[in-house]
Structures are given as structure tokens and as C-alpha cells.
């Protein structure tokens, strides 16, 4: 089974645009996979075949790439895919406890989305936000300085359809498919939303200003 003709046609237009960005077509494979993930929520057999056709390579070659990268999901995830950082720094700061409590709170099989299809959870590695530990993500937006209590409230709000704002990100989290589409290189026009930096990012700058510390003047 392949994509419906109207879907295929639309995706082919997007695919052409992606491929045109690169000196060689095969470089477009990662964004193309984000694109098909945006369409279906995961990378299905159809998605693999579509990418293979666009690039003139075999489905097996595409599969080999899909299985290498953790962001490509071969089974459906929730509309809101929640990450809990369990790399050492976050784990020690409470990420392990957050994961334990959150997975118990949601119950069921952690590799499946909640029955309403709203939320799935994943243990993620260091997400380059250790100064905000413990860190969580929703569809790859940052939720900083989390606690087990905040984590429970977060998934409750997501499941209840409330507007949920990341700590450093857009004014509200978008859906999983929308996020994947941005990663494929199709902006959603929301770059101006949200803070430019969180308080931790500004610690050194604030202190330097307080104490009158500056970089040297150029002396030439």
C-alpha cells in the first residue's frame, strides 16, 4: 500500500524542495524521513518506500538509516511525545525519580502511547540543558527544573488538551507531527515566541554586569 494520490502529490512537492537544498540528493534523506514522520507520526513502510523512490535508492538502504537514529519512530507515538533526561547529571538531580514516578503514574506499557493517543514517554539522553536539570522535553521543547509533581501535572494538562508552555520555547507546544515538519525544514513562523534565554543562561552575564566586569577594549 502506498500513500493516497493526493498525499503523495503533496509530499512529492515538499520532497523536491528538500532535495533542491543539497548538492547531492542523498543528503536529503534525514529531512525526508522527518517529513514522512510529520505525515504519519512515525516512519511507516509507506514512508520508507516514498523516501526510497524520491532518492532512487532501495527501501533497505532507507531502513538502515531509520534504525540508526533514535528520533525516527517505527511505531506510533503520542501526539505529545514526552522525554525525561536520564543521563547522569539529570538522573542524579532527580530525573530517575521523575521517570519512575511518571511511568508508574501513566501505567501501562511505556513503549505505547496512552490509550487516548495523547502522550507517550521516552528516556532521553543529555539534551544540552544540564544547567536546568532535571530536564524534560515535549515534542523536543524544553521543560526545565522539573519535579515529579510538575511532570504529573504536565502530562495531565497535555491529556486534558490544555495549552502547555515550555520553559524555553514557543508559547505553547505544537503537536508531534508539526514538530517533525519543522525538523524537515519547513518553519512554522513561531521563532519569535518565548524567551531568548532562561535565567541560568544569564547567570554569568548578570554577575559580570553587577560587578562591572567586561571584556577588554580592542586596543588597535
Amino acid at each position, binding site marked *: 500500500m502506498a500513500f493516497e494520490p493526493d498525499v503523495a502529490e503533496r509530499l512529492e512537492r515538499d520532497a523536491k524542495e528538500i532535495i533542491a537544498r543539497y548538492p547531492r540528493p542523498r543528503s536529503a*534523506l*534525514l529531512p525526508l524521513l522527518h517529513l514522512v514522520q510529520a505525515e504519519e507520526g512515525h516512519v511507516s513502510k509507506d514512508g520508507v518506500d516514498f523516501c526510497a523512490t524520491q532518492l532512487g535508492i532501495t527501501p533497505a538502504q532507507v531502513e538502515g538509516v531509520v534504525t*540508526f537514529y533514535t528520533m525516527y519512530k517505527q511505531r506510533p507515538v503520542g501526539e505529545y511525545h514526552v522525554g525525561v533526561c536520564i543521563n547522569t547529571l539529570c538522573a542524579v538531580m532527580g530525573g530517575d525519580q521523575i521517570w519512575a514516578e511518571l511511568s508508574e503514574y501513566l501505567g501501562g506499557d511505556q513503549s505505547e502511547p496512552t490509550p487516548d493517543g495523547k502522550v507517550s514517554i521516552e528516556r532521553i539522553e543529555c539534551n544540552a540543558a544540564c544547567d536546568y536539570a532535571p530536564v524534560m522535553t515535549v515534542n523536543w521543547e524544553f521543560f526545565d527544573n522539573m519535579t515529579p509533581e510538575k511532570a504529573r501535572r504536565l502530562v495531565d494538562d497535555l491529556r486534558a488538551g490544555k495549552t502547555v508552555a515550555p520553559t524555553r520555547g514557543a508559547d505553547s507546544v505544537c503537536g508531534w507531527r508539526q514538530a517533525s515538519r519543522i525538523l*524537515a525544514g519547513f518553519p512554522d513562523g513561531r521563532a519569535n515566541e518565548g524567551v531568548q534565554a532562561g535565567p541560568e543562561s544569564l547567570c554569568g552575564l*548578570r554577575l559580570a554586569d553587577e560587578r562591572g566586569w567586561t571584556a577588554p577594549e*580592542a586596543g588597535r
Partner: protein
Amino acid sequence: MGALTPILTRSWDRADSFTLDAYTDRGGYRALRTALGMDPDAIVTAVKDSGLRGRGGAGFPTGMKWGFIPQGDTKPHYLVVNADESEPGTCKDVPLMMADPHLLIEGSIITAYAIRSHVAFIYVRGEVLHVVRRLQQAVAEAYEAGYLGANILDSGFDLELVVHCGAGAYICGEETALLDSLEGYRGQPRLKPPFPAIAGLYGGPTVINNVESIASVPSIIENGADWFAGMGTEKSKGFGIFSLSGHVTRPGQYEAPLGITLRELLDMAGDVRAGHELKFWTPGGSSTPLLTSEHLDVPLDFESVSAAGSLLGTRALQIFDETTCVIRAVLRWSEFYAHESCGKCTPCREGTYWYKLMLARLEKGNGTEEDLDTLLDLSDNIMGRSFCALGDGATAPVTSSIQHFRDEYIQHFTSGGCPFDPAASTLWAG
């Protein structure tokens, strides 16, 4: 000059810092105009003279790397910015790109001009959606304003810059794995030589630099190589962002000349959290051997940290106090390396797997002192025998923890379990 020197972080407190307007308001893209009026080779020379060394971990001299790019050849040259930031503990490039993407873009254009490249990529990890948005918008703004595209600022120089999102794989931060990934393959490291400067992306001469390295370039062009070299230490010149995380009162980003010490940084960050004391720390991410409170006064520059038995790495200072079980920390890092090992070579693939199994057993107290020798033996077989630096990095927490905390390992065996309470380490335990 102050103890902190905000340069890369200077604009981060302005609410619209990421916009083109804010950037040009404070003199942004002025360095680009200067650079486009210079001979490309003079830019390479200025960066060489500045003493800038790569900020992505290895500290290779940036100007020298650019100088390896063949000139007068017919192959297209490429610039690839490494924005994969995934080394555990490292958290400087992401806030930089979120707050000030134009600084990176300006640095990229100047670098591309210097190495005579007309196509450049920013390879950004995919798990940072808002950073991707900011980069995409900033690149679009730069095209619109004539800083990218054909005939930039009427200089005759053309450059296409593409924001390319990764898909979750730590190994893709390794420069040659990154190239394979950018070419649309599984991210597995390539055999070196040939180095990317000779045969990189699509076999063409390629410069790969870290975000912070590239973002430092406009300030060098603007203020001069001497200005840059006037900061830092003799062989580790300039400034860098020091990222404090973990058990400190005010974790965050502190930009300072290289050579500052952890004692000074902790003093600025309000010390280890109240009522606790420093136990161990990483100077530059999980792949740099652990240090302890004995090393508070080691100048954080490439030479001094190496002399102290570790590596400066990415200046990712992860601070752990006495509530933290070192075996738990090392086990978790080992699980990370086992998960992220690309599987290409046996020492790393198998070695990290055995690390994981053995440390899990040791943490539960089911080990013997002999196991520590086995772990060290195993480490000898990974270190220097792996195909890329991921394998070497994986040994750092294991060997350094045994070196500094052998007694704590033994205590696990003698008491038949872990004596630590993880709850005491959490953010909410205070």
C-alpha cells in the same frame, strides 16, 4: 578586564536578541563587511595569530585547520558547523544559538569566505526544536538582508547556508560520522587520514568547526588577533563559555578567559549547594576523566587540565556533591556510551557492553576487588584501540573513578550494596 568576559554571551539578556534588528543594532555584521574587504588568506592568518583553538572538545588550532584546505584546486569546498551538542554535560552551544543565532551565521559567512567555500551547513541536533526555529528564521533574515546568497554585500562572494537537522545519535557529533550523516547515511566514523580538510563532505575539502569556535570569529575580525590573544593563558588563548551544572547554588553559563579555576567559578556560582561539599566533577563532559576537590585550583586551560590527568573538553563542569554515588554516575555514563556506540569496531562495541553489565553488578554490591582489575584491563583494551574517540571517552569515567574512589567501590562489595540514598541528591532534597 574582569574575571568574567561576556563576549559571546553579551547580548543574551536582551529580549529580542535573536532577531536581525537586535543584532545589527549592536554592530552585528560589521565584522563581515570588514572581512569581505580582506584577502581570504589574511583572515586565516588573523585566526591563526589569535590562537583560537577548537571549542568542540579537542582544542585543535582553528586557523591551522583552515590552512589545510587546498587552495587553487577545482573541487568545491565546504564548511560544516557542528551544532550537534550531545556530549553529556555540554550545554553552551544550544543557549548560544537560541539567544544569538546571527552571531553564528556571521561567523559562518566569514569562515566560508576565508576557506573559499560557497556551500555551508549547520548540522544541528534535532532534539532542540526552538533552536531549530531560531536558526531557520535567522538564516531567512540573513538571506533577505543580502548577507547570504549571491554576491553578498556586493562583494562578488556567494554563499548558500543550509540548516540541517540530525535525528538523534551522539556519534554524529564526531566530525567524520557527521559527514556520513549529512550525506544521508548511518552516522559512522570514517578512517582518517584523509582528514576532512582534504577529503570531507562529498570528498571535497571541508572545514568542520564547533558552534562556539565559529561564533568567536567575528570578534577576532572586529577587535584583532592581539585582543583575543590578550586573554587566556599562553597556549590556551581567548575566552570560552564555562557551563556549571549539578550541585551548585547557581548553575548556568559563565564566560571567562581560559585558565579560570573551578574554585573561582564556584565562588561566582554561590558554591556547592548549601550544607554540602564537592565530591567529583567533570572538567569538560563525561568523556573527560573525573577530578575531585584536590583539583579546585587547576587552571581550566588545555595544558593544565591535561597535566592534572584529565581534559578541558567542552568546559562542561558537572558538579557532584557527597550525596552522589560515583558508581551510579559511572554506570549511567557507561550505559550511555553502550547505547551510542555505533558498533563499527569491536573494542568499543563489546567493551562498553561489558562495562554496563559489570558496573550494574558492582553497584548492587555483587563484586570483588578483582573486578576492578578486570575493568581496568578492559579499559586498556578500549583506550587507544578504538576506531574513534567515542571509545576512548567511554573509558574516562571508569578509569578515573577507580583511581579516585577505589575505596567506595570496595565499600559496595563489603556492605553488599549501595550505601547512598539517591533521594538525597535531588534538586528538591535541597
